[in-house]
């Protein structure tokens, strides 16, 4: 089988196929709809709870979110956990663009800083039921557009073909 060298056009076709398949695998991160629904409801509950039950529920709501995030992260790391979440693959870390990782970290940091700044300078919410309104917007966005957001993030997070080791354009 290995006695025959493939002709150039066949080799080029094979390279295109390899790159296409690698792109597919990089874009394979997806999960079941119920995951977005659960996260959307939890975010809504966390933000809306103080409006209805007072500030005393804030720590409990925050802890519930932390527990949920930890459980989610733990499930993502195992095959069975990922299968429960509806994720058929786990994309290799090397496939994620370093620029995306840096941008994501900066964004998270900015959101946290903005949150702290608002908490420091605002003496109470500017209008009643602000948490509920925010919860509806954020939770609703996650529930209804979670899949689309994830696909957009996938395309941002994955490297271009020229960055890929051993792909069409290079070797190492």
């Amino acid at each position, binding site marked *: *089988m290995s006695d025959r060298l493939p002709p150039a056009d066949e080799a080029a076709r094979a390279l295109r196929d390899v790159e296409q*398949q*690698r792109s597919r695998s990089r874009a394979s991160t997806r999960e079941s709809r119920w995951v977005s629904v659960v996260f959307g409801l939890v975010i809504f509950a966390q933000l809306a709870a103080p409006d209805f039950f007072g500030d005393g529920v804030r720590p409990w709501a925050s802890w519930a979110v932390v527990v949920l995030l930890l459980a989610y992260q733990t499930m993502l790391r195992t095959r069975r956990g990922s299968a*429960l979440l509806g994720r*058929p*693959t786990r*994309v290799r870390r090397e496939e994620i663009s370093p620029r995306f990782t840096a941008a994501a970290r900066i964004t998270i940091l900015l959101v946290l800083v903005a949150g702290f700044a608002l908490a420091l300078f605002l003496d109470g919410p500017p209008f009643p039921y602000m948490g509920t309104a925010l919860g509806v917007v954020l939770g609703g966005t996650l529930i209804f557009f979670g899949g689309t957001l994830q696909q957009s993030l996938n395309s941002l997070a994955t490297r271009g073909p020229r960055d890929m080791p*051993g792909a069409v354009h*290079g*070797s190492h």
Partner: protein
Amino acid sequence: MAPTDFDGVLLDPTRLSIVALLAGVEWAEFGWVRDEAGLSPSALSKQISTLEAKGYVEVEKGYVGKRPRTWVNLTADGRRALESHVAALNRIVEDSRRAGAAGGSSGTGGTGGTGGTGEG
């Protein structure tokens, strides 16, 4: 170029396609590979067995709830084989381009070599 640069197992387009799919992931469910490669379960199973016998993929079977699942992942050997195979394919394409450019430039004085790494 020596024919040994090529991996005989990966010269099969279906197997190359499966290995390329697995190259981007730590592991993948059998069903996902089947769908993406556009193969029937039995055809994929046969190809996976060939790749497993060669040491290029590992297969893990288990249950999620009561449903049986199979996960597949590329081994380090499989990844190396894919990379050297792709490098060999790249060399063929680059050599062909250079030969074409040299043929075309004999009358025009062109430089040829239109990019790509093409190290060999």
